[in-house]
């Protein structure tokens, strides 16, 4: 390796620059990826955050508006009678740093082996139709989906419950191992058909549940975790 960041002093400097946030956007993105995949470097960044934290000691406290806490309380409230779901979503949200590290590692593997054999999960021969009804918190139906594991065809039929939201609904598959996989942005106001191909169709054939997150317009979340709130979810069932 001739990576200049292998030099200890350069590592120190880069960690300090990242903590101070003087790097250009491209440099910062690269350094953040490094932080997520390299625990020693991440520890340097933490140490720099500690050193620089002295700056905020003379920042005077300002009491925020009393409206902030109720909003936080609402945003973090567990769904009624659905503690498993809360624990589930929390688990991967918390684990996202590890997921990022894993995806960085996977990316490096792909670079090293440019033509990896695709992983084909077991999909029952002859195909089955899988269906799911996605409900909002409170149990109101948001969407019904049907998926044909042979043709890879996915049919989405939303109710009017997601219409009018300025955010963009994104569909997710929940895998048997608990991870999630992004399918993509969907139309929350009208029925639509999609054709899933490659790995995605295999994942859909095995998914235990599906979910919808609401993302900001123009933003595409990482394929392994939503950034916006998860508003609807339902178990996948074989017809």
């Amino acid at each position, binding site marked *: 390796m001739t990576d200049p960041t292998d030099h200890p002093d350069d590592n120190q400097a880069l960690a300090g620059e990242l903590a101070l*946030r003087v790097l250009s956007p491209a440099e910062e993105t690269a350094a953040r990826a490094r932080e997520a995949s390299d625990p020693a470097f991440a520890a340097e960044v933490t140490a720099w955050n500690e050193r620089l934290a002295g700056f905020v*000691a003379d920042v005077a*406290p*300002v009491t925020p508006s009393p409206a902030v806490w109720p909003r936080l309380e609402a945003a973090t409230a567990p769904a009624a009678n659905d503690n498993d779901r809360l624990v589930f979503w929390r688990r991967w949200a918390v684990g996202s740093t590890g997921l990022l590290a894993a995806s960085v590692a996977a990316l490096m593997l792909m670079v090293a082996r440019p033509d990896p054999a695709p992983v084909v999960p077991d999909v029952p021969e002859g195909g089955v139709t899988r269906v799911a009804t996605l409900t909002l918190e409170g149990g109101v139906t948001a969407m019904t989906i049907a998926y044909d594991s042979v043709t890879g065809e996915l049919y989405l039929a939303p109710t009017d419950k997601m219409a009018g939201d300025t955010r963009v609904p994104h569909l997710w598959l929940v895998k048997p191992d608990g991870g999630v996989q992004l399918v993509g942005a969907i139309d929350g106001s009208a029925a639509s058909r999609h054709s899933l191909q490659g790995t995605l169709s295999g994942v859909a054939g095995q998914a235990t549940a599906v979910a919808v997150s609401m993302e900001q317009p123009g933003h595409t979340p990482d394929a392994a975790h939503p950034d916006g709130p998860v508003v609807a979810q339902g178990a996948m069932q074989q017809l």
Partner: protein
Amino acid sequence: MTAILTRDELAQALGRTGQGDRAAFRLVYESTSAKLMGVCLRILSDRQLAEDVLQDTYLTVWRKAETFDASRASPITWLVTIARNRSIDRLRSGSPVRNAAPIEAAFDLADAAPLPSTTTELGDDVRRLNGCLEQLDEKVARCIRTAFFEGVTYDVLAEREGAPLGTMKSWIRRGLQRLKACLEP
């Protein structure tokens, strides 16, 4: 509704927050939100924007509290770092930059009484940091402080100081190196 927690108590409350304990989350919020709001406001200079980012900050805290490691970071620094980074992200995200107003304007909104818990803990740190900054070239110390509170990159710093980009980079890198040596003799 201000709660006063010691460093250990705050670390424990964060740990419980990571396990989904909502009462602990509330305790974290009540004991630190004024400090974090001060940090957001200092960087963003706009109360509405700062409250927005403060809310984002605590949602991140709720989701990531499980990753907080008390053996590596102090709890208040961990929280402040999230608040500062979120504020800088928002500044850079293309929201209207109202930061043109003097930073000092933010002080007009400051509470009369500081929070004893967090200010006590960080008090020694800032004295040490200021002492070490004083040993640096005044211009370099100013650039590091500006970068911390305004979230500006090398490019902007170089332009402001009328220095070539490469020169600015070596000033800051050398400055950080000397700060580290001074803080950890």
